[in-house]
């Protein structure tokens, strides 16, 4: 167990402050990339740290503190999504978004953002989360597997599925 994890588990209040400093923005980003809603992500990040605080005594160091925190965040995000029964955007909605004209014209910032949002939302929450951990957090598949409670093989398969899906939507334009 890391020193910080050990201190956190023992109830050290300063350790919790340190954990908030180190991980709050990362957790918020993970929540946002999984939920795709800023307000929900802000609320969720806060609730994740409430959970970390109240459950800190149960951290046994079987996984790293980092993946333990991510696991809590992911479980809470998935549960939240399950409750609101919103997971993916239907493909036809993605196609509609992609074909809709944007205010700043084709190739503009707004168009790119709309394409990105539509493409990412079409992934399942788990694929979004795995892709986020891999692509933005540069986590190893082992770490992703620990955080998402799955196997390294499943983590890799989810990531590759997400990449291929995103490539089909985002990677087909501007061919040389």
């Amino acid at each position, binding site marked *: 167990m890391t020193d910080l994890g050990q201190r956190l588990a023992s109830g050290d209040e300063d350790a919790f402050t340190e954990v*908030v400093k180190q991980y709050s923005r990362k957790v918020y980003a993970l929540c946002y990339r999984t939920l795709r809603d800023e307000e929900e992500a802000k609320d969720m*990040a806060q609730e994740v740290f409430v959970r970390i605080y109240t*459950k800190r005594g149960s951290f046994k160091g079987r996984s790293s503190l980092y993946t333990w925190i991510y696991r809590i965040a992911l479980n809470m995000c998935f549960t939240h999504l399950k409750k609101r029964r919103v997971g993916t955007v239907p493909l036809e909605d993605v196609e509609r978004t992609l074909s809709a004209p944007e205010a700043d014209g084709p190739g503009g910032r707004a168009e790119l953002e709309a394409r990105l949002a539509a493409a990412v939302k079409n992934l399942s929450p788990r694929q979004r989360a795995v892709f986020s951990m891999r692509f933005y957090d540069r986590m190893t598949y082992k770490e992703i597997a620990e955080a998402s*409670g799955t196997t390294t093989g499943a983590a890799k398969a989810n990531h590759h599925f997400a990449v291929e899906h995103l490539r089909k939507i985002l990677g087909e334009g501007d061919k040389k």
Partner: protein
Amino acid sequence: MKSEGHFEQHDLIDFVEGEVTPSLADEIKTHLETCETCRAYVESLWRTFAALEGDEVPEPSPGYWDYFEQRVRERAKPGREPAPRRSLVFSWLPGVAAAVALVILFWSLPEPRLPEADPVDLFLADLSTGEIIESLSGSPGIGLMLIEADTNDITRIDDYLAETTDIYDLVDQLTEQEREIFISNLRDNMKEEDNTSGITDGSARKG
């Protein structure tokens, strides 16, 4: 690994992510010089990744972070936490030994149904065999499973998850094949139970 003269997509994804061995990277580079199909695929991956680099997380207002920890601590004060949902049932969870995977069933499975006289919402079953375990107390297990009849969504936790979460915080992990095998086993056992004494253990179930 090549298939029909082309590299597999996953190899090319790993290549673009820098996850292949130096020798495979060299092999792929050489191949890309002559294979238009694989080159086009790799280029589309680069375009995709470049686009995704622009997918920024919106920055909350500065005040959000200024008082973040303070709000968390306030929320975490005793009595401010949301009431635990069905947590009583799982209060024994952290102490569970690693031996048998358990299943918790919420609502009845579509077919066969649980006895009407006893609308069971919750019971435990052995994950590997589908054998129903009637009592929660003292049941050994490395994890718990949850299944929802309306969706057949199955949720699994490992013993290490049990240390941090309650059952509602879990997500489905089974492959389709695992799910089919499990549901099949579980249904068989439920039929057996129905034909004999039925599934009854009120103490183990949600009220």
